[in-house]
């Protein structure tokens, strides 16, 4: 509360901060090349350090109210995670090739351990993210992870996918309800209805932009093929026609999948942030589908035509847009008043399993 000159207590004025991203494609390009080089010459071992350096760079370039975020993970722990995941991957690849009848059993084993990995990686990820020297936290439990990923996911095929938007809602809810900063836990009031709405329109877009046009293209192709099949395969025109059809088909597929994807991303991200609040702090998100689609498509072209060299540019560009759509609103000194929880999770020591895994599992 602030006291004005007359001594009367005035309502605290909300203050808004932009989320500022200052990363540069040039700077990240250099970090990226050196990371790739060192990762390759060390046969992947440096990969863990590369990952931490990349994350640290993106975090350090993101600031709110003049203070940057920080990624605190110890690369040695990430290396352990990489080795375990790498071993699992090789076991799977070899089994699939030489003992295919065991591959199915292995899939079930992976399915059984996935909730464990997802839970640990979420904990690891949040615990190692910090702002103003206070770590983020994840309070969900391993049991909840098993209920969500193992049990409730079974309902998706049983309901022919109708349950899927609800399941995504539960997944987001699990994260947003249990995420915390210091001693403060986030509150989430998102609604499943919004997820159903988003998935309904995304499916409609997919139908109109991908399924129907592709069907039409295939129909036209089938019709022309009848005329062309009599003509000899030797004709370059014939090959040209095939090539044009393939190009149009591919472009339709890309466009028809990128638009619904980005629509879902913007709707769900906006909804989740806008219905959350962390103590006296709120994060607002105003992502626009059109802009995201434009960025995705131009990034895609840039990466293809630069043979991958513009990956850093594409990544920086998208991050800048997504973070630029976020604003942080605090009511009365909210940002200053967060306190760290000292009783638990002060450090990662003693909880090594938490430190093992770090995947991007798309939560």
């Amino acid at each position, binding site marked *: 509360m602030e006291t004005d000159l007359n001594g009367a207590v005035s309502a605290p004025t909300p203050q808004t901060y932009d989320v500022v991203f200052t990363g540069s494609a040039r*700077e*990240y*390009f*250099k*970090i*990226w*090349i*050196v990371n*790739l*080089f*060192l*990762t*390759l*010459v060390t046969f*992947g071992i440096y*990969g863990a350090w590369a990952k931490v*350096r*990349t994350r*640290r*760079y993106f975090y*350090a*370039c993101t600031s709110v109210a003049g*203070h*940057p975020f*920080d990624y605190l993970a110890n690369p040695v722990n990430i290396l352990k995670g990489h080795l375990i995941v790498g071993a699992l991957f*090789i076991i799977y*690849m*070899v089994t699939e*090739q*030489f*003992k*295919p009848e065991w591959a199915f059993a292995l899939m079930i084993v992976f399915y059984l351990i996935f909730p464990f990995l997802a839970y640990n990686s979420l904990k690891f990820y949040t615990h190692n993210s910090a*702002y*103003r*020297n*206070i770590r983020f936290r994840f309070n969900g439990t391993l049991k909840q992870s098993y209920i969500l990923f193992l049990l409730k996911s079974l309902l998706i095929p049983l309901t022919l996918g109708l349950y899927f938007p609800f399941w995504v809602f539960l997944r987001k809810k699990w994260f947003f309800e249990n995420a915390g900063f*210091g001693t403060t836990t986030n509150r989430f009031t998102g609604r499943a209805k919004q997820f159903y709405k988003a998935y309904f329109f995304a499916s409609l877009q997919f139908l109109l932009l991908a399924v129907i046009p592709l069907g039409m293209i295939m129909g036209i192709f089938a019709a022309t093929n009848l005329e062309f099949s009599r003509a000899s*395969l*030797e004709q370059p025109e014939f*090959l040209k026609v095939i090539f044009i059809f393939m190009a149009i088909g591919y472009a339709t597929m890309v466009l028809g999948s990128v638009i619904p994807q980005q629509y879902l991303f913007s709707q769900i991200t906006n909804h989740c942030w806008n219905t959350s609040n962390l103590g006296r702090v709120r994060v607002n998100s105003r992502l626009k589908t059109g802009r995201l689609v434009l960025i995705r498509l131009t*990034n*895609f072209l840039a*990466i*293809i035509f630069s043979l*991958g060299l513009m*990956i850093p540019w*594409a*990544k920086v560009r998208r991050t800048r847009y997504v973070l630029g759509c976020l604003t942080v609103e605090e009511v009365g000194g909210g*940002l*200053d*008043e*967060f*306190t*760290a929880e*000292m009783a638990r999770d*002060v450090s990662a020591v003693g909880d090594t399993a938490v430190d093992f895994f770090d995947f*991007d599992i798309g939560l």
Partner: protein
Amino acid sequence: MDIKGTFFDGKTARAVDVVFRAEGGRVMVAGEDNIPLVHWCNLDTCTIAPRLGNTRRVIRFSGGQRFETDDQAGMADLEAGAGVNRSFFLIHLLESHWKSVLVCFVGLLVFAVGFVRYGIPAISTHIAYRLPQGILDQASQEAEEVLTKRLLKPSTLAPERAEEIRARFRELVREITGDMESPYAFSLAFGEAKALGANAFALPSGTIVMTDQLVGMSEDIREIQGVLVHEIAHVTHRHAVRNILQSTGVFVLVSLLVGDGASVTGLAVSIPTLLLESGYSRRFETEADRRVVDYFVKKGWDIAAYENILRRLTAKERDIPGSSFISTHPGTEDRIENLRKWAARQSAP
């Protein structure tokens, strides 16, 4: 030496302007009016986060406190004086100059090409020859079932013709694998398959499958012998297994390289993988062709027979210009040119 910056006590999110003081390996943090926020302690109890671009520098204290500063020069002096983060400083040097980035880029290309051309094939070959035959048989089993149960219909070849080819096949196997105990259970099967056309396959176990169409297409027994030597070479050189292992290697390499940006597009991973794998496959075909030449020259047979059947086999496929880039087999003309080159070199040593 003093460095100005911001301080967080690790208990609340409040930021305080402070001065970080270092004297002979001992450090402290002084707040307003010189009140110590961190008492004098040894520098080696603190963690100095390595420099990364021009992002803010951070020192973390053992008590959970944190000091942040934008004074890059001051921090560099502190690190140099105390001799910490030397290897990370080297990495920072690499990252901060375009010349060294270029050197890394060239090194990256050289290493990647070397690994693809020599590293992965060498490792795969090493592993392939150490795999027990039982595993090869296992791997063949499924492919064999798909071939015989779904794709192939019973052969309509005259039994005498089939037996004649089988007799030649046994002869070839005996001569190629020698008197040594061969680990492979060589056998030759025939079948009728519209979908496959004139074709022959070798499974790692030693089973070779030839379609009736291929037999029908041949005009001379030499031609079939050529194809059989080619297929036997696939078995004895363990090409199928090496192919699997190399694909795995390529997948690991490509995901290592583009892994970070792979979410951008699956194409970024699949196209290079496809190109590299078809390149390996072409090398195996060339190696098998080479064995055919070796055998024919040794026997004093004319390599033209093998050339003829190759031509006839590939006549229907029609080479699309530039397509050899992604094809699993080398272009027919290239193959024939190679055959002649090797044959000439071997007959006139």
